[in-house]
């Protein structure tokens, strides 16, 4: 069956969300993944947006995290103080989806600058809510394309903490949330199921090999003893994405 790299990420993210009640959603791929999950295995899933919306029922694909379609028909819409204090810091978010321009082996993320902070080569958007989401959400799923420039040995800037320097560093510093659990990319899937909390290759897209992935990862990659193959989208998942969630193919 023919599908795009984005569609592969979306369906794998949607499947990973199964069993989670409250999901903190970003716009774009994460948003499509969450809505796919709600329409397939998790109808009870509640979508939280940092714009202050809880229990959104978007009638169309939101154009931004502040789209009016997220407000009309939502369960509750409050101010951002409530969203960040009562919902996120309050510990009600089960899982949040984050991405970044750079990621390291411990799932720490950079969305601030490429190059020096004062004289940046590229000025990126910055934290938004990502820094506190990474600290307070129950767990984190990271969704980003696997590219050499993104999977780096050392971040230019640490915007959002993953497992810091690994091991029990998060517990030591006292974060409420458990941090990154999975990294979902267009070419492979990773988890952190080891005491060092180091990113581990567990699944490969059909045409990929351990070597082809290692070639685009900036550190000596930890590989699971038996690496499986990523399951592609089903026909149902594809048609739901193409016909309902992203009819214009903005994220194709």
């Amino acid at each position, binding site marked *: 069956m023919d599908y795009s790299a984005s569609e592969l990420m979306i369906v794998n993210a949607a499947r990973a969300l199964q069993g989670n009640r409250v999901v903190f959603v970003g716009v774009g791929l994460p948003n499509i993944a969450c809505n796919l999950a709600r329409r397939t295995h998790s109808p009870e899933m509640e979508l939280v947006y940092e714009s202050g919306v809880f229990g959104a029922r978007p009638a169309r694909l939101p154009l931004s995290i502040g789209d009016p379609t997220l407000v009309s028909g939502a369960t509750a819409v409050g101010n951002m103080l409530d969203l960040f204090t009562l919902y996120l810091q309050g510990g009600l978010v089960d899982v949040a989806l984050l991405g970044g321009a750079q990621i390291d082996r411990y799932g720490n993320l950079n969305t601030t600058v490429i190059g020096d902070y004062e004289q940046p080569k590229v000025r990126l958007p*910055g*934290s938004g809510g990502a820094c*506190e989401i990474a600290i307070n959400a129950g767990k984190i799923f990271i969704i980003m394309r696997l590219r050499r420039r993104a999977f780096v040995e050392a971040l230019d800037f640490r915007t959002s903490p993953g497992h810091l320097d690994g091991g029990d560093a998060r517990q030591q510093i006292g974060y409420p949330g458990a941090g990154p659990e999975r990294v979902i990319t267009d070419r492979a899937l990773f988890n952190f199921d080891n005491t060092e909390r180091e990113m581990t290759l567990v699944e490969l897209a059909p045409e990929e090999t351990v070597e082809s992935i290692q070639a685009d990862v900036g550190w000596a990659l930890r590989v699971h003893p038996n690496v499986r193959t990523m399951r592609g989208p089903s026909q149902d998942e594809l048609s739901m994405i193409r016909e309902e969630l992203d009819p214009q193919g903005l994220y194709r």
Partner: protein
Amino acid sequence: MNGKILSMQQAVARYVGDGDSVAIEGFTAFICFAAAHEIIRQRRRDLTLIRMTPDLVYDQMVAAGVAERLIFSYLGNPGVGSLHCIRRAVEDEIPHPLALEEYSHFGMVGRYTAGASRLPFFPLQSYAGTDLPAVNEKIRFVASPYSGEEIAVVPPLHPDVAFIHAQRADTAGNTHLWGLLGMQKEVSFASRHVVVVVEEIVDEEVIRRDPNRTLIPGLIVDAVVHEPYGAHPSYVQGYYDRDNRFYLDWDPISRDREATEAWLEEWVYSVADRAGYLTQLGDERLAGLAPGRMVADGVNYGRYD
């Protein structure tokens, strides 16, 4: 009709001076482009611009050269990409350098809240273990007198003036807002002056029949500007949708300095006011942004006499 009703031209002339700190807030919604364009037209300089998400509104203001400093938490064209004019200022000092003071969203939420509450600091579970405190000395840590655990704090923020767009207000500035509340209430209480910009001016009784819906009391409002579609191309819940075509169009325009200046000339400098902008935009474009109806059920507060 009291003295608070001003035109946008009068409100900017009276409440925005060179070197002031200005907050045109509204999280992805209620963004008062009308205020931004008037500030550009009046050629203010050396402003400190404050917004969680600078969005296109500050991309345009920075391109026009009104700003020397930016206090923010997320620099992006929501759902589209980069803010190229701000990047040009930061990366290449075009039209001139732009100083950045950077927080996370929660940090900005905390700064507004501390400012509104006259608190010396706002504690939040964030920043520990990141590089943000290293580049912003205003982000500090306090030990809890109970557990001893350290928690991040941010200081109060007091903009010289806030421009707050909403659906309706009475002539005293008592303001009803529904939809995304953002931080409109807190930034208003935190600011030295508040200009409320509304789609409709309504009778005081409309406000008083639903006092829980009053987000901003006239007590803290200096001026009320009646400016329909004043938030275009962003949106106002129940009144118009975001004009996403413009958000997409801005990407190629803003990538090119000349194209950006041509756009500012055509849509800001060469129009007298918001009415002129809307005429140039055309009724058809606006009609296409009208939402359907989803009306809240009335609630009875009861008459107790």
